[in-house]
């Protein structure tokens, strides 16, 4: 196993010439922009019900109208507007979950890796315990008990998905702990806080960024799965998972209603993963192992 704590020289230049990075950045950046400005660019109100105009197919299919680019759903709501609005929900879930789980995981992992000994034993125990708890099931149970809401989904996922942050933060901190420049900082008589914030954290940041992309992808997929099972983001919010769930009843008659939100989910998650892969290549290490 290589130590791989340093960023390979010329990494940034390679990043910009990397098609995977560019494509990933384009997808994620595009979704981020849509998520922010969606209320101004959506052609219709995604919550407006019109029972006279139900299940209209996309505009290029037979029976479609140019008025509704991707048709309408089972309640006559504009599918394209709902799809666009869903971007906001997925991005919100992805970003906020990563912030929550990152704060927990990085704190726990850095402490374990930095201090070692009993503290590290406790950290390892916490990670092992967390990994053995079936995340989807627990998230479902909590949602059923406390009632569904966007905040709850973010909170539950954030409290569940910190394990990989902790694992990576712990092992990278451990490698750093014994390096000369950290020893030098100690010799200069600085506080542990200084060593952690000035010497350790900046040097493990790239590794943590890779983990952040992995967790963001996972959070987006999990939210969709929870909403699909009816215990994630509550209706009428147009979460992509919920859209697929609502379309399930009509799946054999209007398969496009299933295909469209699923494809959006696939593209966004793919974009996030491409970013992560490019970052990992830049470091020249393989964290997936």
């Amino acid at each position, binding site marked *: 196993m290589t130590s791989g704590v340093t960023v390979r020289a010329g990494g940034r230049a390679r990043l910009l010439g990397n098609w995977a990075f560019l494509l990933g950045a384009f997808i994620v950046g595009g979704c981020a922009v849509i998520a922010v400005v969606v209320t101004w660019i959506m052609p219709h109100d995604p919550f407006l019900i019109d029972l006279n105009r139900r299940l209209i197919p996309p505009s290029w299919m037979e029976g479609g109208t140019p008025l509704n680019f991707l048709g309408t759903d089972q309640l006559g709501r504009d599918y394209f507007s709902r799809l666009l609005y869903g971007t906001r929900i997925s991005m919100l879930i992805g970003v906020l979950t990563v912030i929550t789980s990152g704060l927990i995981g990085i704190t726990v992992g850095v402490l374990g890796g930095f201090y070692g000994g009993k503290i590290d034993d406790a950290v390892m125990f916490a990670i092992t*315990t967390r*990994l053995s708890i079936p995340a989807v099931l627990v998230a479902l149970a909590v949602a059923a008990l406390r009632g569904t809401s966007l905040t709850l989904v973010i909170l539950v996922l954030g409290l569940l998905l910190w394990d990989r942050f902790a694992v990576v933060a712990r092992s990278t901190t451990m490698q750093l702990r014994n390096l000369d420049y950290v020893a030098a900082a100690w010799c200069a008589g600085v506080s542990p806080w200084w060593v952690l914030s000035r010497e350790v954290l900046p040097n493990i940041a790239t590794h943590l960024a890779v983990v952040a992309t992995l967790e963001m992808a996972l959070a987006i997929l999990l939210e969709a799965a929870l909403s699909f099972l009816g215990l994630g983001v509550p209706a009428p919010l147009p979460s992509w998972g919920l859209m697929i769930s609502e379309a399930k009843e009509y799946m054999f008659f209007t398969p496009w209603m299933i295909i469209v939100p699923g494809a959006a989910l696939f593209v966004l998650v793919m974009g996030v993963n491409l970013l992560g892969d490019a970052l990992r290549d830049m470091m020249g290490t393989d964290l997936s192992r």
Partner: protein
Amino acid sequence: MLRFFLRRFVVAVLVALTVLTFAFLLTRLSGDLAISIAGPNASQADIDTIRQVYGLNRPLWVQFFDWLGRAVQGDFGESYFFRDRVSKLIGERIPITMSLGLTGLAIALVVGLPLGILAAVREGSWVDRAVSLVALIGQAMPSFWLGLILMIVFGLKLGWLPISGTGSWEHYVMPGVVLAFSAIPSLTRLTRSGMIEVLASDYIRTARAKGLTRFSILVKHGFRNAAIPVVSITAVQLGFMLGGSVVIETVFALHGVGFLAWESISKNDFPVVQAVVLVLALLYIGLTLLADLLNAVLDPRLRT
């Protein structure tokens, strides 16, 4: 060796006890369990009766130790909805979830290992890039969505496979494929990186110099050494797959433990939920323990 096993075993038991406590506390999250069980239309008298019957009026710690005492003996109480022993309900469904998990794992291994080896042998070529594309697609595919698409294509349009249910082996094909998709990316990547490392080593060069066949070099000398990390990840993956079976079993109405869990969650049947969380966690703990032991047997350097 024995000390390593013992230490690992003690940690596993401690983790199991922590998860046990967690599973108990999880169902108390709602505040008042009796109100949740009674449902929205219940009167105060109904709620009081339920509290009495299920012993929910006792102090929390009494309830906990009562439940713990029974749970370690394999008694998870009675289901509120099915009016049956929880252990029996789970016991009936475990074989279905296990079959699904093993089918998924088998497909993932059959696809993932050769792809990983192929990518490693042709490192940097278009084959390698194609394999990483496959891994990337597998990683981004929402499992429930893939399940629905397969149902539309192979169930409805082509009519090759049954859409839902548990009757025959054919019912496991589509769910198995969907489940395999979640494990293929990591298995492929791990095999690839392991093989690349091994193929660059001196003993492979020696094997080549001895004039051994390509197959013998790749499989006997190469893969056997690259397989060590793959073995442990395989056991862990099976654990994750069993945990992820909730979504897939619900999509395909496959009546395994995951489906039972989903049903019980939507019916506020908490003894079942508690028990399923616990059983899945214990399976995972057992599998990781097994993986660690296998690793120690395969690679003596890890016995510390």
